């Protein structure tokens, strides 16, 4: 009896040793070939959980492929993929809490390089063939990088952290969205001279300017949310990029309105933004729309883009921020055309045609 029990114990140990030899059997998604034409969806993932991802929707096949960065490169994208910009055949993925920018080839999402050494990068903006600016949430200035050599070349002291940037008329417009980590008011639009790499001017708007677009007339439209705690009324501004004058300000009616995600169609005539629902207006309108273009219902809209080829409004729904997100495609009359599951917190839609 006793001998049997000792044998059982030995057998259990043998089993344990063999068990530990077994290989992990998690299925790994197969490597991709080419992505084709369509749009990327950059999924931020949850802060500190490093579950960012990149999805791609092929408009020819009408098929969404998730985890394209991981499938090709066998590494995770990182911790909070904040934004992506395409330049030529390369995509620059700004991974905020990982403090780096990955460069990928856009045809298959394969790794082409990386720029390291940032603190909290948010957006990249190409200002010259060999110069790009990178905004940083935690630094009162903007990094100057060489997008070819993949090196940080300098730093522009602006006194404030910057967010989205846009090149217009050989000037760089930078939104000062946050003052959580840095001093200074977060209600301005700074104008940077990209030749001398210095702040040339500054325009006071409303709290938390979060997004901007350029219309076909050359006017800059800037959307301000009104602040983290709704300190001010949100507002939409139209700015003359030559004179830097604010030519129009449209205030949102309710103090709780917190609009974001301003985008524009490919003709440069129709603006779209999210204020829980999706709204649209033309560049000739002088008041904010009262009726929604698309009602959110149970959905939690988070980012928006206009497909210049398919002529569709593409909107992401983050649902509850911790499950898979969704991307929805709407025709220009607000009818839903298609939808696809994407990663966690789809935060930006980037077109690649």
């Amino acid at each position, binding site marked *: 009896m*006793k001998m049997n029990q*000792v044998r059982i114990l030995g057998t259990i*140990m043998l089993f344990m040793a063999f068990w*530990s030899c077994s290989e992990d059997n998690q299925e790994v998604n197969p490597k991709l070939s080419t992505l084709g034409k369509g749009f990327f969806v950059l999924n931020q993932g949850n802060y500190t959980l490093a579950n960012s991802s990149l999805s791609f929707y092929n408009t020819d096949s009408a098929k969404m492929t998730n985890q394209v960065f991981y499938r090709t490169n066998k590494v995770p994208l990182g911790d909070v993929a904040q934004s992506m910009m395409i330049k030529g055949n390369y995509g620059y993925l700004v991974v905020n809490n990982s403090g780096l920018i990955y460069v990928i080839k856009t045809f298959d999402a394969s790794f082409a390089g990386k720029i390291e050494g940032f603190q909290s990068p948010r957006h990249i903006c190409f200002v010259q063939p060999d110069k790009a600016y990178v905004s940083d949430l935690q630094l009162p200035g903007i990094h100057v990088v060489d997008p070819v050599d993949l090196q940080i070349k300098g730093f522009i002291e602006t006194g404030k952290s910057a967010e989205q940037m846009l090149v217009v008329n050989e000037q760089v417009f930078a939104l000062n969205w946050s003052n959580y980590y840095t001093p200074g008011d977060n209600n301005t639009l700074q104008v940077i001279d990209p030749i001398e790499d210095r702040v040339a001017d500054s325009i006071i708007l409303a709290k938390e300017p979060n997004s901007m677009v350029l219309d076909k007339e050359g006017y800059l439209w800037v959307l301000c949310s009104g602040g983290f705690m709704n300190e001010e009324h949100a507002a939409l501004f139209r700015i003359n990029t030559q004179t830097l004058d604010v030519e129009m300000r449209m205030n949102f009616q309710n103090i709780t309105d917190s609009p974001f995600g301003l985008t524009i169609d490919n003709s440069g005539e129709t603006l779209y933004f999210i204020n829980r629902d999706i709204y649209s207006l033309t560049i000739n309108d002088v008041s904010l729309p009262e009726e929604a273009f698309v009602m959110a219902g*149970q959905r939690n809209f988070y980012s928006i883009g206009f497909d210049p080829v398919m002529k569709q409004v593409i909107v992401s729904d983050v649902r509850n921020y911790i499950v898979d997100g969704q991307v929805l495609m709407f025709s220009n009359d607000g009818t839903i055309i298609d939808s696809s599951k994407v990663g966690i917190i789809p935060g930006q839609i980037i077109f690649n045609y």
Partner: protein
Amino acid sequence: MRRKLLHIVILVFAVWLSGQTIANVPDTLNLAAIEVKGSLFQKGQMKLQVSNQFIEGFKGKDLAFLLSHSSQIHMKSDGPGGLTTASFRGTSANHTLVLWNETPVNAPNLGSVDFSTIPVFFTDQIGILWGSNSAKHSASGLGGTVSLNNKARFNSGFAFEAAQQAGSFGSFGSFLSIGYGTKKIHVRSRVFRKSAKNDFPFFNYAVMPQEWMRQQNADFTNQGFLQELHWQTGKRGLLSLISWNQWNNRNLPPIMTNTGRSGQQQEYINDRFHRNVLSYNYFLNRIRIDARIAWSSENQHYFLRTSGGADNNETVTLIDSKNQANALRSSINIEAELGSRLSVFVRFLNEAESVENNNYAETGLRNRYSIIAGGKADVFSWLNASLLLKHEFASNRSGAFLPFFEVQMIPVSSIPLYIITSAGMKLRHPGLNDLYWFPGGNPALKPELSKSADVSFQWNPVTGLLQHQFMFNVYYSQIIDWIQWRPTSYRYWEPVNLALVNARGFELGYQAETKIGSAHLFAGLNYSFTRTTDESRAAQLENTAGKQLIYIPDHHGNLFVRVERKGIFASYVFNYVGKRNVTHASDDLYRNILNHYSLHHISLGYDLTVSKSEWSFEFQIHNVTDTEYQSVMWRPMPGRHYTIGLQYKFR
């Protein structure tokens, strides 16, 4: 190749063990020679008593290591010396109540306990309680209770114990205990210090290009002292004063994806606590009175600084968060035996808690009261029943009535098999962070309510010359208004009573102890299967209903074997943790699952006893197979590493 060789070594070790012991088995054994140092369960109770073999074997470790290798409790760890929390029966970290000398030590702000900061050296008894044994204590142990006790040793004379450890990655541990026990008084002091640089190498496959790195900014130092005074006041009274004081300083390393960040990031958590309990037990014929008062002060300091600017030394991020939690807990428990078949008890608990935090608008205060009454009746010689009624309420909140019922039976009098079944309700109040944190704290949160039932089969036979114990538990619990922190559209997270969580599963336990010739053999085996899912309406809408909750493994098991012969001892520890979900996203998206892992640890040592002096030398190899694994996503863990230890005891 090296990995295969190591597996072969383990196989050979296993074969050697079974071969050796089989070869040495005599036809007859002297049962009286068996020294029973602990039992798997207390007969007929819903309590698992961690064997002294484990406590002695893991004395230089923390409680997280001990429990993850000797019980069904799953530990989730950020790394060596890092935050480690428990998941008990499929519940979350703040559903495991930790009692130290019958007093809760769960932080009032978070509700959870960091098991990595509790040195096994500071405990004499470790119990794992569920059913009515858990219900009669303070609130919050929805999953169960871990009970740590210090025991008086009267008449023990002078005792001295010192141990020194050194190991890989700059780890050191020093332990000292000195005590004196007379017929009336026992005094004991214990001191420890543990530190590690923790700069272990790991292969970082979370960045491009993939490369070998060393863990950064992960060093820690924990140190503390425990003072006990036990005094027998006359023939009927026992007065105890115990003070546990500890200082834990640890730096916080980046996750694997974030190793390239700039900013000279300096991030740490320093915490110190002082826990004191004064208790008085009085025994009068068939009445026992236990009165105790405990006061604790816990201070936690989280610091984050990053720098930048022209000289790269300008502070650009500074978070300097300080948290001060105080608690005064008192209880009185009166138990009485009314005749030979009935015992009753009544208990009153009060917990007054306060928390000051940078992120609170004002000091968070709370007063909780519980009154518990119950009884146990031997209905038949083979069946007894317990009933426990609890009324519990917190300041400014309506109370709750919580019944608990338990039946124990011995179905066949000649077989030492116990069947225990229980059902009842428990309540956990939100942590003060859940209520008062700014932004996001939700003062309207309701307490979580658990309804649970379980059955336990416990068999404790002495088969020939081998003493062994089996345990098989099946449980089911439903937690209503489970609190979850969720992101909001205002960019901060907010706790909400959202989930309706069902946790069910079963647990297996086995312990065996015997003596074969001059060799002493001890083995313990644990396994648990857990299924925990959210079945709330919200989960159904989000398509997450029925999905295993994050960081709760389906399967968890461990094995411990120790052989000792003529002072030479060897032990082997195996730990298995099944795959775990790490997000609520669908399974078809990569990296939503953490792979299962198996760890093997072995140790060899020699005990030498000369008169009243005992010397012990031990060499330990951890993670023998150099397994790459993660307990928390993108938190690297060390590969194979080593510890040597020398211990001296004088009794």
